[in-house]
């Protein structure tokens, strides 16, 4: 079950990333001209405008958000890696920031039948009529893209395929996409501003179009406010569930480590959370997703006080060739008397997850 959720979150994330990448690629063409953007729009954005594409996109977005909120409720403590914090925060701020754009693009067409959502139209809105939306969209670009980049990077870096596709090149490519898209956005913006000034006919067309959407601003705003309210309540509920789970458990348990370390923490925390909360060096490349296997430990005593292995843990352990070990990020401490030995040094990196049998501590 957990494996399915994990895979589903990844799959929906990939769908969304694919859509965003197409959108960015379309924006990049702005470096050439506005016409090029329009010309390529049916190819890059068209598929997502079709009924199945749109359904897939909307479903993916909803499922991804739901799974993100669900992952908050499943948390047991505040210990998480920096990338996790970044991803969580950016993920939380994205829907409210993006909502406006999404509603205009998806709903306006239905509310006002003849609304023409071309790039020229939208860029004119952003660069001339209400620049505030543009600032919001720029923030979204950054939030969405870094969120996606963190996700993609931490997924790919653990795969053996990483070396084959030239791991070092992935980050520059990942960051070139939004940078080029933003440059395209700025260049196209210049063109649009010039065109608005020099081409009154076009300007008239744009303002006409804009008037149509201004008429439906009120219902759209109301809709937006309602969605935001629901979203805010959902986030609060997730946070409340998390807080309740944190506060519910009061008993503390102790875990002994190798090298004389020992950790104390609430019952029910995973071994890795124990280590991190008690300043014990412990490798965790995939930050508790149970994918990398670098946090694996040998249980010396008290194996019965740990939560039982799930399928995903068994698979990961088999992949790294240590079937009798435990993943510290998955094994939760349910009782006293646990003592473990960390099997990898704390500085084990992604290469230890990609090729576990070749990796030796340097």
């Amino acid at each position, binding site marked *: 079950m957990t494996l399915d959720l994990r895979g589903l979150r990844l799959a929906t994330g990939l769908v969304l990333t694919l859509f965003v990448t197409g959108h960015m690629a379309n924006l990049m063409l702005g470096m050439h001209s506005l016409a090029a953007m329009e010309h390529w729009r049916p190819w890059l954005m068209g598929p997502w405008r079709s009924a199945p594409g749109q359904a897939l996109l909307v479903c993916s977005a909803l499922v991804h958000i739901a799974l993100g909120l669900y992952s908050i409720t499943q948390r047991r403590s505040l210990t998480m890696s920096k990338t996790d914090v970044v991803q969580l925060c950016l993920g939380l701020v994205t829907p409210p920031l993006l909502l406006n754009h999404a509603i205009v693009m998806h709903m306006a067409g239905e509310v006002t039948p003849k609304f023409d959502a071309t790039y020229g139209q939208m860029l004119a809105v952003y660069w001339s009529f209400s620049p505030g939306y543009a600032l919001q969209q720029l923030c979204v670009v950054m939030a969405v893209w870094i969120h996606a980049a963190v996700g993609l990077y931490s997924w790919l870096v653990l795969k053996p395929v990483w070396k084959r596709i030239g791991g070092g090149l992935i980050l520059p490519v990942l960051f070139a996409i939004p940078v080029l898209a*933003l440059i395209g956005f700025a260049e196209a913006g*210049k063109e649009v*501003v010039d065109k608005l000034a020099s081409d009154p006919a076009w300007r008239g067309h744009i303002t006409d179009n804009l008037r149509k959407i201004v008429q439906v601003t009120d219902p759209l705003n109301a809709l937006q406010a309602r969605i935001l309210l629901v979203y805010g309540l959902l986030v609060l509920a997730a946070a409340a569930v998390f807080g309740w789970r944190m506060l519910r458990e009061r008993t503390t348990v102790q875990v002994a480590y190798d090298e004389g370390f020992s950790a104390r923490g609430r019952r029910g925390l995973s071994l890795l959370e124990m280590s991190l909360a008690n300043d014990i060096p412990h490798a965790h490349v995939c930050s508790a997703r149970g994918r990398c296997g670098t946090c694996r430990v040998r249980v010396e005593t008290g194996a019965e006080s740990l939560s039982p292995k799930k399928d995903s843990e068994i698979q990961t352990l088999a992949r790294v060739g240590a079937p009798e070990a435990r993943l510290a990020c998955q094994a939760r401490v349910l009782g006293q008397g646990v003592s473990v030995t960390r099997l990898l040094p704390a500085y084990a990196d992604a290469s230890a997850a990609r090729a576990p049998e070749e990796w030796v501590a340097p």
Partner: protein
Amino acid sequence: MNLAEWSVEALAASRARFEMLGRDLVQGPSELANVIGGTHAALMTGMGVRAFTYVVILLLVGIGVEWLFWSYAYASMRAAQAAPIASPREALRPGLRRFFLRLVGLLLFAAAAIGTSAAFSWPRGVQELVIAATLFVVVLRFAWIVIALVLAPGQPRLRLVPLAEGRAGWLAALAMTVVFLFAFGRFAPDLMTRLAGAGHAAGAVRFAAVTLSCLLLAVAAFAFFGRRSRAPRFPRSFVLALLVGAAYLTWLLSPMWGTIAAIGAAVIALQIGLRELVFFFWREQDGEVHDHVLPSIVLSAARFSVVLVGLGIAAIVLEAPLESLAAAESPLVRFSLRLVGVATLWLLTHVIWITIRTAIDQRLARVPAPGKHHGPDPSSRLLTLLPLLRVTSAVLLLVMLVLSSLWALGLEITPVLAGAGVVGLALGFGAQALVRDVIAGIFYLAEDAFRIGEYIESGQNTKGMVERITLRTVALRHHNGPLHFVPYGSLGTVRNTSRDWVVEKFNLPLPVDVDSEKIRKLIKKVGEEMAADPEVGPAMIEPLKGKLYRIDPGVKIFRCKFRTAPGNQFDVRAQAFRRIEAALTAMGVGFADGKQTVLLSAPA
């Protein structure tokens, strides 16, 4: 200018300053609102969108470059974080590694962001704003790197200061807030004045930032240094709060001198806590410092560097032309510069002296006390040489320090040196013999020619056991009792009879009719028995052996020989005689008795 005039002028200046502050506070808020409104309006145009797009691009490039760096550097960062650390001193090296890795990441971020900003054509004044904002971020991040290195909130293993876990987190948050306020109070008002011409708003923001941070610092002084259980000490919290207050008041009177006062206050505050900070690194498992020597060196060096750094920052703040300072005419400036030079010399000498003394003292502590029953021991020459070395280096360092201090203060030392040379020459001739003795002694001792307890013969026909070694003479106890004091200069060839081994030979006259082979075997057997004897056996290096040496009329002389450790030959010889005699008696052979057989023939 006399003091009264100066005071009147200073009072007038401070009154003007207060009036200015008052105007800033009255007009600042409305100006500030204007500035914010103007910025907002400017942002909500095509220009604003373009500028913001570029800012996002800068951020993305900066983040991407830094991420790329971390994708390679993170493993070594983790290694530095996970390094096994048993004492605070061991935390220092991995701490520095973390610091430099983070610093490189930050510099890459800053360089990428600022470098990219050159690629765009910005609306007027915006590039300045963006670079200031980037620098602001860089300052904050740098402060965080330093604070994370020193206070390590959440990671008590890595902490470099003596601080409990709960307090570290709070102190880090407070320090970050203060840095934020200071940085904001530095960057924002500048931009306001230059880009928007809002001088009053700038003054008000500066006032608010400084007041708020000083308040926070004063609160921190009481919160973090208030509870000292050692009763008779003056409360630190009060001193620290006083320093903050003094710096703040000075700032109110004059911003420039306020900055200087803040630097001075920081230097004093550091000096107060420096001893604890430095000694923390030498704490043993029981929380106490046992070895005080090295921490003391580091402490004095740290005290000195803190003052120097404070002076340097003050000079930069005052925008004192450093290169022309050295050539300044003002006698006060020249004298202070020279004092700094003398202080440097003093510190250097102090460090060298403590290093030498510690090394010598530690070596001396490892030398066992000269015992009387352990035979000649090699420690005696160390006991002589090391104190000599200590005194010599002390004198040398002192002379050099005095001379170079005089030179650094600008006094002419050539006559002193020349005079010392002449006096030295005269003394040298007078004390020729003395010097010869001392230097010869150093070489005797360095070459390990004799040790206390050894029996030596000198070239001057004096011999005896070495009883005492001094700087100039060696005292030899003759076996009959007299004590010779031989100066090293006239010691000459030393014949040391107490080294490694001695060979002892003696003759055994037996009647001429004994069987030589039997005697040889008998002596050999005695030798084997002696080698097995628990009393003399261990001292013997080669066993007793004997062979026929000479045949005289009526006498066969056997020459016996053995080798022992020095000093044992007399005991061993006596024992050998006793055993041989007993063995001969058992065999029925007596020593040659010296009786002459005189054959008398009857007179014919």
